[in-house]
C-alpha cells in the first residue's frame, strides 16, 4: 500500500505515525514503527537501552518535561522555561504561508513553548502571540526592525542552517510573491539572497558586538546563536557563550529547507549526533555547560529522536519538518517552487495556501505535541528517569547498532 510514500529518512511508517498523532493526539499502535526510520545512519543507528524495569515508585505524572532556556548566572533576563523540551523552528514568511506560521504560533502558545519567525519578517498577525514567538535575525536582515526585536522574548541569530551550510539563504523568485516582497521590502518576483555570513561578523568579537547591539535594543530578550556544524563547532559554541548567548543551537545536515535550490539540499557539515556530544563535552570541559542551553535540530522526527539527542548531550530540540508533516506534508520535496507545495503549506500562493485553515492546522499541531509529550514521558518512565534534564548527556543509555554487533560477538 505504501510503495511510493516516504523515503529512507521519513519512512512511510514515520509519516503515517505522525499523521495518526496529529489526528488523535496519541501515539499510534504497535503496527507502525513510529520510532526509527531507515536512513542507515544518524539517529536511526542509535538505540536507547532500557533497564529491565523502572523504579517502582516512579509515576508518570511526576515526570517533568520542562526545559529551562536561560541558565546564565548573573543574568538579569527572565528565566524562561518551556513546558516541553522542544520549540518550533524558523520558517520564514515566504518559505511557508502565514497560516502555517499562525498554527505554529498558536501551538506554541497552547503548549507554552516557542515558534520562530524565520528570516522573512514578522507578520502582523503573529503579534498577539509575541510572547511565544522567537524573532530571527539572519544574514540578510530581512524584516528585522527594532519593534520585531523589542517584542521578542528570544532573538535567534541565524548564522547558518544545517540544510545548506555555508550557503546563506535563497528564496527563489517565484516564492517572492507580492506579500513576501512587501514584508521584506524587496521587489516581487526576484530571487532573494541572504549572504552566507553576516557581513558585519567576520571574527568572534564581531559576534559579540552583534549580540551587544540586539541586547541594547531589547535588554530582556534571551539570545540564541543558530549555527550549522562545522569542524570547529565546539569553539563556535564557546565563542557564543563568551559573546553573551544563552542558547547554542546546532542545526545539523538532516534538516530541510523551503528556500533553497535543489542542488543545495545535500549532506554537508558534521552529522548532528556527533556535533551534539562534541559540543556538550567541550562545554563541560570549559566549565560552562551549566550556563548554556544546547539545542539540536536538523532531522528530528519523533520523540525518540528527541530523547536520543538529549541523551547525547543536548538540552532540547528544535523541530521543523515534523510539524509540516503533521499539517499533511508528504515530503515530495517541491518546496522551493512557488506553486510546488501540493498541500499548500510551503507557499504564499493565494490559491494553494487556502487548502488549509489556520484552525485545522493548529489542532493538528496541538495533537502532535500532545502525542509527543505522552511518548516522551513514556520513554523517560521506561528509562527510570523523572525528568528530561536527568536524561541529558546519558550516553551510557545509548547504544550504536554498528558497535553493538561488535560487542555482542
Amino acid at each position, binding site marked *: 500500500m505504501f510503495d511510493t510514500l516516504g523515503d529512507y529518512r521519513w519512512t512511510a511508517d514515520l509519516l503515517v505515525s505522525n499523521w495518526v498523532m496529529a489526528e488523535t493526539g496519541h501515539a499510534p499502535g504497535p503496527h507502525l514503527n513510529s520510532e526509527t526510520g531507515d536512513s542507515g545512519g544518524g539517529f536511526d543507528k542509535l538505540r536507547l537501552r532500557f533497564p529491565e524495569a523502572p523504579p517502582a515508585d516512579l509515576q508518570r505524572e511526576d515526570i517533568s518535561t520542562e526545559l529551562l532556556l536561560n541558565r546564565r548566572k548573573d543574568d538579569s533576563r527572565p528565566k524562561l522555561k518551556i513546558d516541553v523540551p522542544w520549540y518550533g523552528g524558523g520558517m520564514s514568511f515566504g518559505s511557508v504561508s502565514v497560516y502555517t506560521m499562525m498554527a505554529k504560533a498558536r501551538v506554541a502558545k497552547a503548549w507554552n513553548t516557542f515558534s520562530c519567525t524565520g528570516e522573512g519578517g514578522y507578520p502582523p498577525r503573529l503579534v498577539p502571540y509575541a510572547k511565544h514567538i522567537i524573532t530571527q535575525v539572519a544574514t540578510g536582515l530581512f524584516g528585522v*526592525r527594532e519593534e520585531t526585536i523589542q517584542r521578542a522574548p528570544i532573538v535567534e541569530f541565524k548564522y547558518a542552517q544545517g540544510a545548506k551550510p555555508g550557503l546563506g539563504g535563497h528564496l527563489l523568485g517565484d516564492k517572492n510573491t507580492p506579500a513576501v516582497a512587501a514584508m521584506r521590502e524587496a*521587489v516581487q518576483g*526576484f530571487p532573494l*539572497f541572504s549572504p552566507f555570513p553576516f557581513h558585519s561578523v567576520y571574527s568572534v*568579537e564581531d559576534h559579540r558586538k552583534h549580540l551587544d547591539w540586539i541586547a*541594547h535594543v531589547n535588554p530582556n530578550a534571551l539570545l540564541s546563536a543558530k549555527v550549522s556544524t562545522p569542524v570547529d563547532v565546539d569553539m563556535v559554541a564557546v565563542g557564543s557563550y563568551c559573546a553573551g548567548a544563552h542558547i547554542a543551537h546546532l542545526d545539523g545536515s538532516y534538516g530541510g529547507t523551503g528556500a533553497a535550490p535543489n542542488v543545495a539540499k545535500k549532506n554537508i557539515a558534521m552529522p548532528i549526533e556527533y556535533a551534539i556530544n562534541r559540543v556538550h563535552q567541550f562545554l563541560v570541559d570549559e566549565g560552562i555547560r551549566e550556563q548554556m542551553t544546547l539545542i539540536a535540530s536538523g532531522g528530528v522526527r519523533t520523540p525518540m529522536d528527541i530523547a536520543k539527542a538529549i541523551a547525547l548531550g543536548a538540552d532540547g530540540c528544535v523541530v521543523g519538518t515534523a510539524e509540516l508533516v503533521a499539517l499533511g506534508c508528504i515530503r515530495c520535496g517541491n518546496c522551493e517552487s512557488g506553486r510546488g507545495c501540493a498541500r499548500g503549506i510551503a507557499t504564499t500562493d493565494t490559491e494553494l495556501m487556502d487548502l488549509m485553515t489556520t484552525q485545522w492546522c493548529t489542532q493538528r499541531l496541538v495533537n502532535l505535541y500532545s502525542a509527543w509529550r505522552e511518548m516522551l514521558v513514556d520513554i523517560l518512565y521506561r528509562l527510570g528517569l523523572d525528568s528530561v534534564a536527568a536524561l541529558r548527556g546519558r550516553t551510557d543509555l545509548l547504544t550504536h547498532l554498528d558497535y553493538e554487533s561488535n560487542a555482542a560477538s
Partner: protein
Amino acid sequence: MTKRRTHNQAFPTARAEALIRANACFRPDGELPLRPREAEGGCGVTGFACTIPVSGRHIYEPSIQMRNRGNGKGGGIAACGLVPEDLGVSRKVLQEDYLLQVALLDPGARGEVERKYLEPFFEIDQGGMIPTVDDYRDIELLEIKPPDVARYFVRVKPDVLQRFAEDKGLTALSERDVADEFIYQNSLRLNQEFYASLGEQRAFVVSHGRNLLIVKIVGFAEAAVQYYRMQDMRAHVWIAHQRYPTKGRVWHPGGAHPFIGLNEALVHNGDFANYHSVSEYLAQRNRFPQFLTDTEVSVQLFDLWDRIYRYPLEYSIEAMAPTTELDFDQLPQEKQRIYRQLQATHMHGSPDGPWFFIIARSLANSGEFQLIGITDTAMLRPQVFALQEGEVSIGLICSEKQAIDATLASLASEDKRFTPIADHYWNARGGSHTDGGAFVLTVSPNNGSGEYVMRVTDKFGRPVATPPGQVHADLSVAVRSEARTEEDSDDLKDAAERGDAGALFAKVRDSLVEWDYDRLRWFVDELADQTADAAPALGIDALTLCLDRRYPTGDKKRSSVLTILRGGLERIFERQPRLSQGGAGALRRITWDTRETLRGPDDGETTLLIDARGFSPEGENCDAALAVKAYHLGWQRLVHYNVRGTRFHAVGFGPDTAGLRIDCYDNPGDYLGSGIDGLECYVHGNAQDQLCQIAKSGKLVVYGDVGQTFLYGAKGGEVYVLGNAAGRPLINAVGRPKVVINGTALDFLAESFMAGDPHNGGGFAILNGVQFDADGNVVPLELPYPGSNLLSLASGGCIFVRDPHHSLVEEQLNGGVYRRLTTADWKLILPFLQENERLFGIQVERDLLTVEGELQPPEHVYRKVVPLAHATETDGAGE
C-alpha cells in the same frame, strides 16, 4: 641569454638555503597539525610609534577601550625602541645584546633553564626577574597569576658562534646573522624542552630580539602593564592585543599574542582558514610550529621573508597579502612581473581569512624602529591609521578609531606636544594597487642628534604626510591679551545679537587663515562666554558649524583648530544647568554622577546634554541607554558629548521616532543609528563600523567618514556622509534608502542591493568621489571608486556616480551595467545634492558639476550603475 651569476647574485640564495638547512633538525616526528590548537578568532589590536619614547601607561587607554573586543583570556604587549636607563643597562648593551625574556610557568625551572640554555652559550650582561606587583589580585580583572618572567641581556660567546657556524654550514654569513640564527634556534630548543613537548609546560621564550620585549598573560593587556610594573617604562613603539580566544578555561599565556619572530613582534586580529597549508609551506622551509596558533605562523612567515629571504618590506607584504584581480592589472608592468613570481612562490604561505596584523619591528642594526599595519586583501577586519606630526610625531594603528583618540588624549594629558586629535586618519585598502593594504611607520635617528624623526609610507614607499608648514597650538599657554581686536569683537557682538550662527561661522571661516591661534582662541572663548548663558543654542550651533565644515586653516593644524573649537563647546556645555538645578534656558545637562536625576522636560526645556564620561560602553549603564529613557520621558533633543567609544547611540528608540534629534560629538562607537525609524542623527566627526544597520527611515548626517558595512540590511533612510565609507556599504539593503557619499568606498559598494526602482519608491546611492583639500577646496579623488563588485549581484536600486572621465570600468562590475544619466535621474537626485550642499558646503554647480574649471551638464558628469535586469535600451550605454 643567460645571466652570468656572480658571487653577489648567488650569495643571497646560498645564504637562504644554508639558513633553511640549518633548521632541518627541528622537524618533528609525525604529522603536522591540521588546525591550530587554539582558534584565534577575535580581539582588538593597537599600536603606536613615536619620535620620543613614551611610557607604558599610555597603552592602557586603547586597551581599556577595546575590552569589549577581548574577554580577558589573553592579552599582551610588546615594546621596542626602549630606553636604556629604564632597564638599567647601557645604551651599548641595549643595542648590541639580545633581550631574552623567559616566562617561567614553573618558577623552579629557572635554574635548569639557565644552566642548559643560557650559561653555556651566552655572556650575560644582566639578568634578573622582571619586577611585579606583590599580589596579582590587586589588579582589576586579573584572575590568574601571570607567570614570573626572567629577563636577560645576552651576547653569544664567540667560540659558541664559531662552532655553531661550522656545524650548521653558516660560516659565509656575517657574525650578526649567525648570532641571530643562534638565538632563534636556542629559543626553539628551549621551548621544545620546556614547553612544546608532551608533559608539563614549564617555561617558554617570550621574546629574544634586540631592543624589543614582549609580555603576555591570561588577562587583559593593560593588566600585563600593571602587573609587570611597566607603567613608567618608556619605548618608541608599543603594540597591544586584547584576545578573545574561544577556548577559555584551561588557558596559558603562551598562546597569547604578541608572538616573536626574531626582531619583530606581531599581534593579529582575525583568523585563517588555511592554517594547514601555511604550516606545510613553513615545514618545507624547516619551520615548525610550537604554540599552534595562527599568530605564531604569521610572524614565522614574516621572519622567513625578512631575515632568511631578505626581501624588501614591500615583497614581504606582497607575499603576505597578494595583489589580485583588478588591482593587479593596474600595477605597472615591472611590478606585475615581480609580484607574479612572489605569488607563485609564496601563495600557499599567504594566510587566507580575515586578518589584520600589527608588527613592531626593531631594526637594530640601523637603530630604527618600525610599526607596520597590514590588512588582508578582502579587508574583513577593521583598521584605522592615524598620524600626528609636529614637534613630536606619532603614528597610530588600531582596530577602532576611539582607541586611537583615547591614546592621544592620554598622551596629551601628560605632554602638551601631543594633541587629543590626530592630524590625519585613514584606512588601508587591502591587496590594492593604491596603497597595497599596508602602512609602515619608521622612526629613525636624526643624524646623531639624539632625536628621532618619523616617516610614514604605504607598501610602495609612497609617503603619507600632513600638510607641511603647519604647527600645533600650545594650549597650555594663556591667550595673550592682544589677541582681542575691535574688529573681531564687534563682528562677534553683531552676529550674536542677530542670533546668526551662520555669520559667526562665516567669521571664523573667513578669518582663520589670517588669524593666529591666540585670536582664534580668544574668539572662540568669547563666543562661548557670550552665549553660554544668554543663548547657548546659538553658541553651540555656531561652533558646531565650525567643527563640521571644511575650510583652510593656514599655518594652523586642523587638529588644533578642532581642539580649540571643541574646548569652546565644552565651555558652553558645562555652563548649562544640570537637571536638579534650576535655571532659565532650554538646555539641561546630565552626567554619570547625576544620572539618577533623570526626569522629563519641564516647560521651556527642550534639549538634554548627556556628558558621556563615566558611562559604560554598552549595557544598561551606557549613555545611549540613558538617552532612550530620556526620550520616553519626553525629551526630543538629545546631545551626547565627551563620547569616548561608548556605543549604540541613536539605537533602541523603537518605531516612529520622527521629531527626535540626536547629536553626537567626539568618538561615538559602533552600530550608531541602527534601526532608526524617523529620528534625525548628526555625527560631528568620524563615525565607526556598522552604522545604520537595518535603518528604516529618518536621517543620518556624518561630518566625516564611516566604517564597515554601513547601512547593511537598511530598509530606508536619508543619509549624508561627508567623507568615505569603508567596505561593504549598503550591502543587502532593500526598500528605499537614499544615500549620498561624498568620498568613496573601499569595496563591495551596494552588493546585493534589492531596493527596487529608484524612480518608483525605491532606493539609490550617490557617490561623488570628492574630498576637501587642505585649502578647503572640493577636489576629485584619484578614482571615484577604487574597488570592484560595484552594485554586485543586485536586483534593484541604483548607484549614481560622479565620473566625468569615465574612469570606472566594466571589470569593477558584477551583474550591473553602466548607463547614461537621464533627465529624470537628475531630477530625482538633485534635491539630495542640494541638501548635501546645505549640510556640507559641497556646492552642486561649483564643486560637483564643474570639471577642470568648466561647468558641465549633469549627464556629462554623472553616470549610473543599474542591475542588468533593470537596464533599458533607451538609457543608452554610459559611454
